[in-house]
């Protein structure tokens, strides 16, 4: 039925035939196209860079790349949860900084703490920040953009007050914890594996679970979501808590990876996170996009960073290239939307 555009979709008076086995949802196909085009862009980038310098694909370089993008991937996936509901969380960079410093302080105060406990505490602190965000949004009925802009500064302020100029060094943290940040399994950094698990879990949840689909419904048409009995307030609150927890996880991993921590860790990261999600095809007005796409967006942005260095392009241009990429991604979305709308209108032409 979806074979040719413009074919009459319904023929009044005739019962519909059985489902066409070849038929696949247009949305699904476009989704695939979107993630495919990101992969192609990534491949082209790696190819061009490698042609200039074959060491770009050497084991160490790839390992650095995967290590470098893991934290951004986790944050972008969390942000996807928020953005599909037509919200945004700008406080993730500050949550990461706060949790990272808290983790360091924990090891300073109790050097014997096993790292899984530190990990859980970090995630819990992140979730607590998420509770603050979600609670304020639910109570104040103010757009998340404004609330999280406020908590961006508030969380960072707590961080600065706590640190009061101190710095925590790798020497203050247990070796087992620091290994977490650099260890590899079969050549793949553990950090990246953690990120992969997060992507897989969140991506599958958004796709295959009722509450996951409800997040899309909320972002797609909030009024209709309310009328169809979706607990909009509860879902949005949960999404901010989940995103806070993921930012907390990213904060612990940040501490493990860098070892040296001060109150400024993760400053400005939130915009990179939103950029990664948008480049990855998550519509900023909610309702569409996937965790897989956002993760690919994060990998692409990180890869651009390192390949520009290899290509000996002035770091100044790096920002401009990222900007151009965001605009290109938005332009592509717009183009796809217009073409899809035209196509769908043609398909729904009445037979009668």
């Amino acid at each position, binding site marked *: 039925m979806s074979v040719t555009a413009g074919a009459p979709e319904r023929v009044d008076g005739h019962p519909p035939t059985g489902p066409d086995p070849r038929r696949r949802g247009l949305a*699904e196909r476009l989704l695939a196209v979107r993630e495919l085009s990101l992969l192609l862009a990534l491949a082209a980038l790696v190819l061009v860079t490698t042609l200039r310098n074959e060491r770009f694909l050497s084991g160490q370089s790839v390992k650095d790349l995967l290590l470098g993008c893991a934290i951004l991937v986790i944050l972008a996936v969390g942000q996807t949860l928020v953005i599909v509901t037509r919200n945004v969380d700008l406080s993730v960079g500050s949550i990461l900084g706060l949790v990272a410093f808290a983790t360091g302080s924990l090891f300073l105060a109790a050097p014997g703490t096993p790292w899984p406990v530190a990990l859980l505490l970090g995630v819990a602190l992140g979730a607590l920040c998420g509770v603050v965000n979600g609670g304020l949004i639910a109570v104040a009925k103010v757009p998340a953009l404004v609330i999280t802009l406020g908590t961006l500064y508030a969380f960072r302020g707590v961080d600065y007050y706590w640190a009061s100029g101190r710095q925590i060094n790798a020497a203050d943290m247990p070796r087992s914890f620091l290994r977490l940040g650099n260890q590899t399994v079969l050549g793949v950094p553990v950090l990246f594996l953690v990120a992969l698990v997060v992507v897989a879990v969140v991506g599958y949840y958004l796709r295959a679970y009722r509450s996951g689909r409800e997040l899309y419904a909320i972002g797609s048409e909030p009024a209709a979501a309310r009328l169809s009995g979706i607990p909009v307030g509860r879902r949005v609150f949960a999404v901010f808590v989940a995103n806070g927890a993921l930012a907390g996880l990213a904060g612990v991993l940040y501490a493990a990876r860098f070892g040296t921590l001060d109150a400024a860790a993760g400053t400005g990261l939130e915009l990179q996170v939103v950029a990664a999600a948008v480049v990855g095809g998550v519509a900023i007005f909610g*309702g569409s996009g996937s965790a897989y796409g956002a993760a690919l967006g994060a990998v692409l942005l990180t890869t651009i960073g390192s390949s520009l260095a290899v290509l000996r392009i002035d770091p100044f241009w790096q920002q401009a290239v990222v900007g151009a990429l965001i605009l290109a991604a938005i332009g592509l979305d717009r183009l796809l939307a217009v073409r899809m709308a035209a196509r769908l209108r043609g398909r*729904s032409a009445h037979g009668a």
Partner: protein
Amino acid sequence: MSPGAPGADSAPLLVLDGVTKSFGAVAALRGVHLELHPGEAHALVGENGAGKSTLVKILAGAHAPDTGRMTLDGQPLELRGPADARAAGIAVIYQEPTLFPDLSVAENIFMGRQPLRGLRRIDTAAMNRDAERLFARLGVRIDPARPARGLSIADQQLVEIAKALSFDARILVMDEPTAALSGVEVERLFGVARSLCERGAAVLFISHRFDEVFDLCQRITVLRDGAWVSSDRAADLTVDEVVRRMVGREVSSLYPKQDAPLRDTLLEVRGLTRAGVFSDVSFSVRGGEIVALAGLVGAGRSEVARAVFGVDRYDAGEVRVAGTVLPPGSPRKAIAAGMALVPEDRRQQGLVMELSVERNATLARRRALSRLGLLLGGAERAEARRWTRRLQVKTSRLTAPVATLSGGNQQKVVLAKWLATEPRILIIDEPTRGIDVGTKAEVHRLLSELANEGLAILMISSELPEVLGMADRVLVMHEGRLVRELPRAEADETSVMFAATGQGAQA
């Protein structure tokens, strides 16, 4: 038991008793009584603003009634939200489709109730099959896997119907579901509604199409101004009788249009057509005249006004101002030609709520008030003071944000804004919606005065008394067409209502 209603053959499934609901100072429902019986289709009719949609929202759990009680199967029923209504077996098809454009058709139907497989995952294949089966029952073919975005209005409505069907609802509420449907589709919908009735469900059907009401329903309840008027067997009623009950009220003397000398034709509209919205609309308005555009909500009145003013484009026809053709699609040129549009939705289209009264009042003529491109406070304030005084806007100070004013005073500020452009033609959409009686009278007095000064006024109104009291001529629209033109002497509640509901359009 409601007076006038014949004894029912079975115990009622759902009873609403003494239900009231107010929004601010406006009473939308005043002690409404309604009984739905199993196996019966029940029609709810009434004019615009009679409270039908509010009643639907209450049944859907979207609004909580202020007072009154509901019972289901004799048990008290309290709906704290749409989810409760669903759990009680009440399915609602809204007047306007409420779909999620980004999600697939099947997901739209089954949102929150998707079929599951292991680990509580959604079984997409089963969901699409179920949707397919529902569409088969409706006899339509819509791809369940396609996104809802881009569906025609009729197809969207069919998805809504499939959604309601999928509940296996005991009570199906349909709020004007047929407006966008073709004859065949309406027949199928009725077939489905009848088969639901045969299985013991109750149907509440809201429509302005009396042929459909009498075709489907066994019982008819009439609402007027939010109050219950009557509930009768359809067999005991005629269309005439229903219309009489819908409008039956005395025309009050609140509407003092004075006769003004008629001047030259200022606004002339010829063959205006916008595909799918309105077609072949022609009329003219002379200076000193108030012409009312009457009709039901959705008849295309506001759309015509927007097209005339140039906000929306039109496909065919022309608009002339004092004999000169107005280029389409340019509100700026329309304003320059001396036209003003006071829109229906003040909050969204007429005012910048956060700005001050004086800023809003002079918003439409900043250019004329500015010197070298700068808006100087003095000129703006003087102009604002002149108009707000004439319109008797009640505000603590001119610099107060418009949002702090009452609805009636906001409406006056919108009027001031447009009158400040010194228009020759004033198009005003629902001039007194949602404002109190006192302010209403002031607005009417003002409109009458303006007509006296030679303005041509085109007024869109859903309030029949206002139309009949103010208008020199009444144009009636029905489903995108201008079906009747009634001079003041011939316009009464019945003739306007008949034309607006498509009865005797040829008469």
